[in-house]
């Protein structure tokens, strides 16, 4: 025989729980649909809970003078198949997902704490947690100058894991117990750029490049080009041959670059600056050395003139200067590509002519890219072309 739960109804627009005042029937009694069963009291009014269908009261889980949350199961009715069918309760409503629906929780009637009225409401996974913010919470965050990313560490206690205003205030007061210092404006602007960039699907590829030809060239060339500038020039030449990989996706359009302006990352105090070499495809490697060195100096001193940054179509970052062999940098938000260069080191290389391993200087080239624009193949071909160009520095 079907058992139909007696549920604490939602008794008002802002009512979350109600107190049991009286049982109007007792276990074993026969009841009809819509009959008053239990008298309950909220802070606003006294009302009755009605029977969802006809049948026999099997039991009441709820206790007199106790308070129960909206949706709590207060008792069970044993209904005949016929009666349940008449009320449309013979079969469970088809579930649209695996999550529980209203009223299925708390089968023992245990009172823990007041739950949101609608429990386990299935919402799309991407709408849970900090990504769903109530207008009140948004207003409070605006007041404090915070963005959603700042709440990534807060596990929400609201419906479907939403971060409630209470969670937020608790988080803020907890922060206040810890030591805090101001982030520099440079830090904040890098944080903002990285956060915006990270809204895209970023992928990474990498391969080693032999630097022996470059080091040989450096012995004779005056002035001497560094590996990072060599990589920058190689990237510029490769993009001049095919600029498509540096295009940006905006809506359903690819926006092609108009000028091969390449930026390069320079570490400055508490941040990174990206000066730009304009039309890097139009000058030879040796012609780029002086302007490059000048920009590096200006950047380190944080004296870059207006116009020396911004508007580049790709960036080179020489993470090898930190002794790193591998990294997965994030492109600037307005760019599709960032080319990385690792630290050079001796590696054994199989010389098929000599029939033995010989030591060579090698460094990893990495390419991080917006996967919406480029796929692994295109990224790999671009990296391959850069590697080839870097092996002939005298022609760059």
């Amino acid at each position, binding site marked *: 025989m079907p058992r139909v739960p*007696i*549920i*604490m*109804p*939602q*008794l*008002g*627009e802002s*009512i979350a729980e109600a107190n049991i005042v009286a049982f109007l029937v007792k276990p074993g009694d026969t009841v009809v*649909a*819509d009959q*008053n069963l239990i008298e309950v009291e909220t802070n*606003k*009014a*006294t*009302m*009755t*809970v*009605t*029977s*969802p269908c006809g049948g026999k009261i099997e039991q009441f889980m709820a206790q007199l003078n106790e308070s129960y949350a*909206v*949706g709590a199961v207060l008792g069970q009715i044993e209904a005949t198949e016929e009666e349940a*069918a*008449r*009320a*449309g*309760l*013979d*079969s469970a*409503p*088809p579930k*649209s*997902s695996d999550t529980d*629906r*209203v*009223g299925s929780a708390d089968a023992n009637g245990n009172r823990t704490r007041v739950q949101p*009225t*609608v429990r386990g*409401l*299935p*919402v*799309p996974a991407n709408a849970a947690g900090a990504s769903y913010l109530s207008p009140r919470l948004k207003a409070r965050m605006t007041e404090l100058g915070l963005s959603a990313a700042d709440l990534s560490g807060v596990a929400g206690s609201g419906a479907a894991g939403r971060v409630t205003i209470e969670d937020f205030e608790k988080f803020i007061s907890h922060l206040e117990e810890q030591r805090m210092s101001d982030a520099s404006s440079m830090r904040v602007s890098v944080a903002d750029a990285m956060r915006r960039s990270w809204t895209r699907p970023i992928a990474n590829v990498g391969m080693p490049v032999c630097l022996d030809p470059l080091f040989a060239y450096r012995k004779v060339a005056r002035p001497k080009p560094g590996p990072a500038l060599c990589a920058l020039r190689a990237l510029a030449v490769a993009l001049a041959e095919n600029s498509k990989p540096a295009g940006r996706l905006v809506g359903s359009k690819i926006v092609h670059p108009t000028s091969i302006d390449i930026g390069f990352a320079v570490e400055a105090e508490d941040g990174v600056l990206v000066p730009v070499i304009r039309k890097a495809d139009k000058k030879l490697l040796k012609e780029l050395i002086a302007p490059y060195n000048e920009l590096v100096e200006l950047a380190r001193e944080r004296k870059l003139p207006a116009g020396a940054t911004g508007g580049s179509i790709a960036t080179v970052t020489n993470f090898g200067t930190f002794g790193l062999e591998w990294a997965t940098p994030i492109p600037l938000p307005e760019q599709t590509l960032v080319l990385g260069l690792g630290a050079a080191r001796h590696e054994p290389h199989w010389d098929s002519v000599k029939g033995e391993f010989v030591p060579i200087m090698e460094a990893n080239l990495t390419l991080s890219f917006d996967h919406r624009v480029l796929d692994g193949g295109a990224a790999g071909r671009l990296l391959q072309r850069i590697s080839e160009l870097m092996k002939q520095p005298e022609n760059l």
Partner: protein
Amino acid sequence: MLQTVLDASPRTDAAAAQDVHVAAYRFMLLARLLDDKFAALYRAGKIHGGVFLGRGQEALSVSVGISLKKGDVFAPLIRDAAGRLAFGETVLDAVRTYLGSSLGPMRGRDGNVHRGKPQEGYLPMVSHLGAMISVVNGVLFARRYKKISGTVGAACVGEGATSTGAFHEALNQAGVEKLPLILIVANNQYAYSTPTHFQFACDSLADKAAGYGVEVQTVDGTDLGACLKVVGEAVARARRGGGPQLVVAELLRLCGHGEHDPNDYIDPKLWESPLGRDCLKVAEEYLLRQKWMAPSRVAILRNEIIREIEEAVAQVQREPAPDPFVEQWHSIATGHLNEGNEER
């Protein structure tokens, strides 16, 4: 929307009055029993959100629904269950909305009373009472520009709406433009819990009409016969090009603002006054007195209606709730308002 049926069979005036009364009574009884069922379902935890009943307003409400024709515009109030049914809404649509069925007109995204079928002139109400008058004006304007004539628009509000700015702007506009608007004000003595002496300082809300150059009638909202006559004539005058018509009905809300509201603030003297009469009982007694219906026929009708409601509820209880993974999440341009222009 009974006219079309009646027009087809010319009868004597008395016989026609009987037909209209009987039809109106049926819608009133259906609305009342449906409201009772919603109240019970609400208190069984089956309905989320509010339940707002029209108890005590059925006579006025049904008179509006029944006086309108297909093609007219109807902007009902939360207490217009009888008018909605008389205008052509099905019991199933009402039940599906309250129980959150995805097959309902709101597809389970909204409960209670904000349903409608705009393409059929049945406007989904907003809860900002008074605002719907301008919306009806807008539809009537659109029809004027499209050279569609012969249709009218009815907007229903309570006395609370008469102290909103929207009421004045809209009534003034309707007066200036001579729009075929019928504005029904149900003065049910309380706007939620606010009594009339906190709502307006004039003797009667009908006094307001003169300021806008609008014709006005007052009516006893507990008397079905009077409501049918006054509302019917107002609709006919508007249809004939007589300009906007204000109808002020005096009655008492025989329930809380919603089912969550114990309405203990209502002045007990009002219950005993003529305003506190139950219009459904008054109508039933009149029908029996006129011998337009036999007591046995009333009992049978009641049972038929209960069965119809129970069947609809049982059917809807088996229907699926909306699925957030396939639901359209844009909030305004929902498919059902597009009606056929659905983008998926």
